């Protein structure tokens, strides 16, 4: 089945020609009245204009958020949990609309937005509604008449900068715990993918008091920087790359506020020899696990972009793996049969092509793909590339840098220790995969790999109830899991003496 193009008859999505910022519960024109064109990577053509905001607009959003924070912070957990549940219900009722829009704005196949991005985002709101109701602060009797109470309080107003690879899901990862914890949010979407979050704001706006959720669009230097450097935010959460991560820490140090940073990885996917011990479902699953590098066109911070294969099965496994990956070819992202969509932007496409170039120059062998794809019809100017497999060694740049394309670099290992040494020979430590039928190998490997998430006999699962975040240069802090409530709360200790007698010190 093929979904109709947005803005054509019969489509779930009819965009307005222009989108303003969402501030204080309404759409507000940017102060400087400037807009930028929003391009769909599916066709390479613009389809709407979006507010090009500046520091003034960020201030206006912060005003709205600060105006709302006292009342929102005082709402009961039950009240906030109910709001989150209603947001989830509205998203579910509009799942196809949001999925089509996300595909159009980002380029990812509708198969993924329908089956992953939206269901995961919806579940995330429900998960935090549940966590919130079950949250309990600690108290302790320190002695017969002294009691310590721990009370959780919201941080106040937080700034969140969202990446373009999973625009709605990454916004949800940040929004759901922040709102659950009683914070007001000023959110800056990525400039490549600014629109679906505004459709969501339109749909759920009536569920939240004005000012609790504010969305300011624009360029990083003009809108992101004023938000990240504002003394009026109590925390900044950012997903992106390391230099901007450093800048955000630098601004945060000036204001002495916390940050959470998710800065990517170069995730190893380890295949031990026993995966081929039998020709069964598990072997099939492992080959699927290899092919996960193509999920979301490889534009995933945890893309399993380094496949490390036991030398004992290297040739056989690779033959099967190349054949499997070859079945994943780019096509119309709005066709439910398409497994590989468009890269999110032209500059991203160019970056991937530059890695095809350096990969070949470094002597990596191209086992599959390695070219841009020109599709027909209105997709001709879209940003499509072939799934690509490089064979080389871990010192090559295609093994060391996050390409953010459907590209995997493959090498072999000789022993368990060799596998772990190669896996850990990276600046990053976000995700990893381990594939084996031996539980002892699986556990040893999972513990030995320096990464925040080690998928063991699975890959690319993102349940709300599992912590996600990086070791090493992959960032600071975690996302998902109920521990995120702590990331968005202060701990207030009230230390009470029930003893009427003086201490006798003075």
């Amino acid at each position, binding site marked *: 089945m093929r979904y109709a193009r947005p803005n054509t008859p019969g489509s779930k999505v009819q965009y307005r020609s222009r989108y303003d910022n969402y501030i204080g519960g309404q759409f507000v024109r940017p102060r400087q009245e400037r807009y930028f064109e929003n391009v769909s990577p599916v066709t390479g053509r613009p389809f709407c204009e979006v507010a090009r905001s500046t520091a003034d607009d960020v201030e206006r959003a912060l005003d709205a958020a600060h105006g709302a924070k006292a009342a929102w912070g005082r709402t009961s957990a039950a009240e906030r949990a109910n709001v989150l549940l209603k947001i989830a219900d509205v998203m579910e009722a509009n799942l196809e609309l949001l999925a089509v829009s996300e595909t159009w704005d980002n380029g990812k196949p509708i198969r993924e937005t329908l089956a992953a991005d939206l269901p995961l985002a919806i579940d995330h709101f429900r998960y935090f509604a549940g966590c919130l109701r079950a949250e309990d602060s600690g108290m302790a009797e320190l002695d017969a008449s002294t009691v310590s109470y721990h009370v959780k309080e919201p941080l106040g107003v937080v700034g969140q900068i969202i990446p373009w690879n999973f625009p709605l899901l990454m916004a949800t990862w940040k929004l759901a715990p922040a709102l659950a914890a009683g914070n007001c949010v000023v959110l800056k979407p990525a*400039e490549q993918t600014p629109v679906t979050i505004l459709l969501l704001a339109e749909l759920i706006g009536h569920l939240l008091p004005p000012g609790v959720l504010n969305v300011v669009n624009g360029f990083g230097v003009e809108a992101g920087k004023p938000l990240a450097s504002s003394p009026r935010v109590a925390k900044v959460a950012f997903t992106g790359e*390391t230099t*901007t991560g450093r*800048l955000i820490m630098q601004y945060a140090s000036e204001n002495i506020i916390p940050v959470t940073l998710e800065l990517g990885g170069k995730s190893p996917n380890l295949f031990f020899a026993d995966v081929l011990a039998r020709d069964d479902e598990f072997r099939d699953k492992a080959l699927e696990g290899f092919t996960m590098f193509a999920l979301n066109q490889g534009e995933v911070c945890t893309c399993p972009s380094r496949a490390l294969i036991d030398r004992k099965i290297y040739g056989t496994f690779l033959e099967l793996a190349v054949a499997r990956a070859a079945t994943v070819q780019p096509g119309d992202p709005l066709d439910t049969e398409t497994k590989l969509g468009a890269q999110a932007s032209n*500059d991203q496409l*160019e*970056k991937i092509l530059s890695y095809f170039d350096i990969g070949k120059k470094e002597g990596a062998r191209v086992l599959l793909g390695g070219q841009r794809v020109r599709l027909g019809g209105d997709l001709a100017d879209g940003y499509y590339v072939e799934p690509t497999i490089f064979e080389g*060694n871990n010192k090559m740049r295609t093994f060391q840098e996050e390409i953010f394309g459907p590209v995997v670099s493959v090498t072999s290992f000789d022993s368990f220790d060799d596998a772990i040494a190669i896996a850990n020979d990276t600046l990053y430590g976000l995700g990893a995969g381990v594939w084996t039928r031996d539980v002892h190998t699986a556990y040893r490997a999972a513990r030995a790999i320096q990464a925040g998430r080690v998928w063991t006999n699975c890959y690319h699962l993102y349940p709300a109830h599992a912590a996600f975040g990086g070791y090493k240069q992959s960032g600071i802090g975690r996302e998902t899991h109920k521990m995120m409530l702590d990331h968005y709360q202060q701990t207030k200790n009230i230390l009470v003496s029930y003893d009427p007698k003086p201490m006798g010190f003075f």
Partner: protein
Amino acid sequence: MALDRIDATAPARAHIRSLIARHGPLMFHLSGGCCDGSAPMCFARGELRLGARDVLLGTIEDCPFYVGADQWERWQHTTLTLDLVEGRGASFSLEAPDGVRFLIRSDVCAVPSAAGDRG
């Protein structure tokens, strides 16, 4: 001291001069990691506080170009050329609002260590 390992194409140089005219002196820092990682970031000079371990790769149009030492260790067998492409990226880089993005192109200048060479 600069390593003289970065050059730039004519379109990149022209755009740097245009940015300098609007924003004053500039600096570059090569990013790593996800999303717009491995891309050069262009800031007003002094915007990013340099650390003791940032490496100066060279200057382009009098703008210093830096990279973190850990990252350079993994890039040092290549020479870099700063280019300019259409697009806008998602970063605090100054050129993005102009609808263009700086991009790194690379050439090999030494063979990577043979240790771990397999396949």
